[in-house]
């Protein structure tokens, strides 16, 4: 019953795997890996160095590992919230299916595709093996870790999916939990100390993963068997004051600083004239409509992570401030889209769009309000993490001397907030479902922010002959590389150029602009144009005589 004839599993597998999209994606994936191997292949046969094979293998492993960490949640985090959003959750619970078979069905169906992707890379890995320099046991170990990671990440996302009402919340919390775990896992299994590496990946990871599996499965089983009381319409009515009484840890108080920056207090009386009702609604009602759980988890996890990072990156080695900034940027990349990517699609999913569209509100007003609300929440949440930066710049003389870099860092963070919100809103305007909009947003952000950094790393390692200037020109879309392009040591700028790469790119002949300057100058107009596109998409897709 649990595996064979499991209706949940069969239905989802049919829906997911039958689509031509699935095959196309797999093809693109394998082709992409193939191209990578092709270009990295040593040019002359005699020159086979174990280094190249090792590096390629590392690239493969890391790439796939992060693929698992990024893709497992996209499938799993929506699997139960999706049922809730479609209002089929209660039907499923009321059916004679046991919670275990629902769970197994959901988990396997969300992971099957991922596992197919991983397995389809095996031939290419074998090719690397033929190059020599890699042990078979190492390959086996890598795949063991990948499968364990897929299971663990999938289950954790499934747990989030069960605890939250909306896919977007479940997705972001999954990422927040999974990415630190993933990075920890990579650090542990990639150390140069082979003994430690083997010990960790064979004796430490599997038992820990299995423990996590067991705990999550038991908790989920309990939840599915005795679902919390959600009222007659299958939707929970969250009363904020009630919830606050039982909250653990951080409590959000709308009347206090800094919480009131992103969550102004609820109104006690009618709105004043001239208020943009959509903006007011978004800020005062929508943020907490699903309860404060998601926000509290996000704030707590990010704060807890920021403390050790601050100690290591800002206080022990101040020249690594860019890494701390990268952490803040990553946080924004994860959390920013939650508030914008769902804002238009959710109106549709909740069937309130019809009500909104028949009012006298102009499309520009609606879209603008949505952007401002999303931007405000994500900026405030992100800037909560910059407290540590301020602290470091005040306390550490080395940083204090270079105070102007703080301003650039803050500008980069602010620009990133703008970019994530605008991109999220655009994706929301062109998608039909929130889950699609979220994934589209994450893909775009990965492509713009992380892709260039990876590409640069790859090109540096394998394709010689591209000048450093050209390489850094690739990365102007990435806030990460612009953060790293800020010279932190005055000496570094002149002497370390070979290792850190050129910090300058030649955009216009004769004028050297650092990467960060191009980034800061480029994004605001880009966002403006994207906002224009969002407006046009919303206007012609929904506002003007409806979509369907």
């Amino acid at each position, binding site marked *: 019953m649990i595996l064979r004839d499991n209706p949940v599993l069969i239905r989802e597998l049919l829906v997911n795997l039958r689509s031509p999209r699935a095959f196309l994606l797999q093809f693109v994936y394998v082709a992409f890996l193939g191209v990578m191997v092709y270009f990295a292949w040593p040019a002359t046969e005699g020159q086979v160095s174990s280094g190249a094979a090792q590096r390629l293998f590392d690239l493969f492993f890391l790439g796939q590992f992060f693929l698992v960490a990024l893709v497992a949640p996209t499938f799993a985090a929506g699997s139960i919230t999706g049922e809730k959003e479609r209002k089929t959750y209660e039907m499923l619970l009321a059916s004679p299916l046991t919670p275990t078979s629902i769970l197994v069905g959901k988990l396997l169906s969300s992971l099957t595709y991922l596992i197919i992707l991983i397995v389809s890379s095996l031939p290419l890995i074998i090719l690397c093996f033929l190059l020599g320099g890699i042990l078979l046991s190492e390959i086996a170990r890598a795949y063991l870790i990948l499968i364990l990671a897929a299971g663990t990440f999938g289950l954790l996302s499934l747990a989030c999916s069960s605890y939250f009402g909306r896919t977007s919340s479940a997705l972001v919390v999954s990422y927040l939990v999974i990415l630190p775990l993933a990075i920890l896992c990579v650090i542990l299994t990639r150390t140069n100390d082979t003994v430690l590496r083997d010990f960790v990946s064979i004796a430490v990871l599997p038992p820990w993963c299995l423990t996590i599996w067991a705990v999550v499965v038991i908790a989920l089983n309990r939840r599915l068997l005795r679902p919390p009381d959600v009222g007659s319409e299958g939707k929970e009515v969250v009363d904020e004051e009630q919830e606050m009484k039982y909250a653990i840890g951080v409590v959000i108080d709308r009347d206090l600083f800094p919480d009131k920056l992103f969550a102004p207090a609820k109104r006690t009386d009618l709105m004043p004239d001239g208020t943009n009702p959509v903006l007011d609604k978004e800020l005062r009602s929508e943020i907490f409509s699903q309860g404060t759980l998601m926000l509290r988890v996000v704030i707590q996890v990010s704060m807890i992570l920021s403390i050790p990072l601050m100690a290591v990156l800002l206080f022990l080695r101040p020249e690594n401030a860019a890494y701390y900034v990268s952490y803040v940027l990553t946080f924004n990349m994860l959390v920013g889209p939650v508030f914008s990517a769902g804002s238009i699609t959710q109106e549709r999913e909740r*069937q309130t769009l019809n009500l909104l569209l028949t009012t006298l509100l102009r499309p520009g007003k609606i879209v603008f309000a949505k952007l401002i609300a999303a931007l405000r929440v994500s900026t405030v949440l992100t800037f909560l993490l910059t407290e540590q930066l301020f602290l470091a710049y005040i306390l550490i003389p080395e940083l204090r001397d270079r105070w102007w870099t703080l301003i650039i860092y803050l500008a980069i963070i602010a620009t990133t907030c703008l970019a994530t919100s605008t991109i999220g809103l655009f994706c929301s305007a062109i998608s039909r479902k929130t889950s699609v909009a979220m994934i589209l947003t994450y893909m775009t952000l990965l492509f713009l922010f992380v892709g260039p950094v990876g590409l640069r790393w790859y090109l540096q390692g394998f394709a010689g002959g591209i000048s450093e200037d050209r390489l850094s020109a690739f990365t102007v879309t990435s806030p990460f590389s612009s953060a790293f392009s800020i010279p932190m040591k005055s000496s570094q700028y002149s002497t370390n150029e070979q290792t850190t790469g050129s910090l300058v790119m030649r955009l216009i002949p004769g004028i050297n602009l650092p990467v960060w300057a191009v980034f800061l100058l480029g994004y605001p107009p880009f966002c403006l144009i994207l906002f224009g596109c969002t407006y046009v998409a919303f206007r012609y897709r929904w506002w003007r*005589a409806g979509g369907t």
Partner: protein
Amino acid sequence: MIEVTHFTKRYGDFVAVDDLTLSIGAGEVFGFIGPNGAGKSTTIRFLATLLRPTSGEGKVAGKSVTKDPMGVRRVIGYMPDDFGVYDGMKVWEFLDFFAVAYEIPRTYRKKIIGQVLELLDLTHKRDDYVNGLSKGMKQRLCLAKTLVHDPPVLILDEPASGLDPRARLEMKALLNELRGMGKTILVSSHILSELADFCTSIGVIERGKLLAAGSIADITRQLRQHRVLKVRVIDDSAERAASILRDEENVKTVEVFDQTLTAEFHGHEDDLARLLGRLISAGIGVHSFSEDDLSLEEVFMMITKGIVN
């Protein structure tokens, strides 16, 4: 007040609404009836400026639905058949939100929100969260929302679905009251009897085609041609009576059940009298010969079966 001319909507090959032409005068209450999937909501969404027509034109209060949607939105109150509410909002906040969206100044808002809550009997729910309301309550809230800007035209898609019998009666009374205030109302339903009491005219739609439209009196007059005849006979002469009825060209179908015959009859009173004479002269013991009163439901069934052109 509402004019639809040659409205057609296609989804791919499927024709949801086919060349629909319709006109509703000011102050009328127009009942739009048809079975599931007939195309009622499609037409209504078109009038509410939410749907692009494949072809055709619509006018509400003289404003074109396709060319001046803002003008139309200003004068209509639209209630969808299926709608959601915002989470985390209280009833008064919800109404305030829409009142602001309709650009009503604050001083009026206070008064108007109180009034519509009163009108829809929701005053005691003023401070409840909207997503915690029951379905019928939400229905009433949505109607309250359509009234905040006091539109002269109301377009209501199945306002009574999901309401209990008492609330249905109240809804009827409310619509009557709104009619008394001089509003033009377009209301759809599958249930004719729900509409008949207060509608001044009805339109029947099936499979995207408008089968009949006009005042209730017009439609019943059209139907007067079609009578259902009930004949009761004594003893075992039922079969013989049936064969006589079947010979008659005015009679369409005959059903025999025990000693009762039910026949569909086309024609006037004198044809009926002649038919009775024939039965009696054939020596059949007729002990009752009567015309059945058509209930509205039966009218609906007959129309949607295509008996009326």
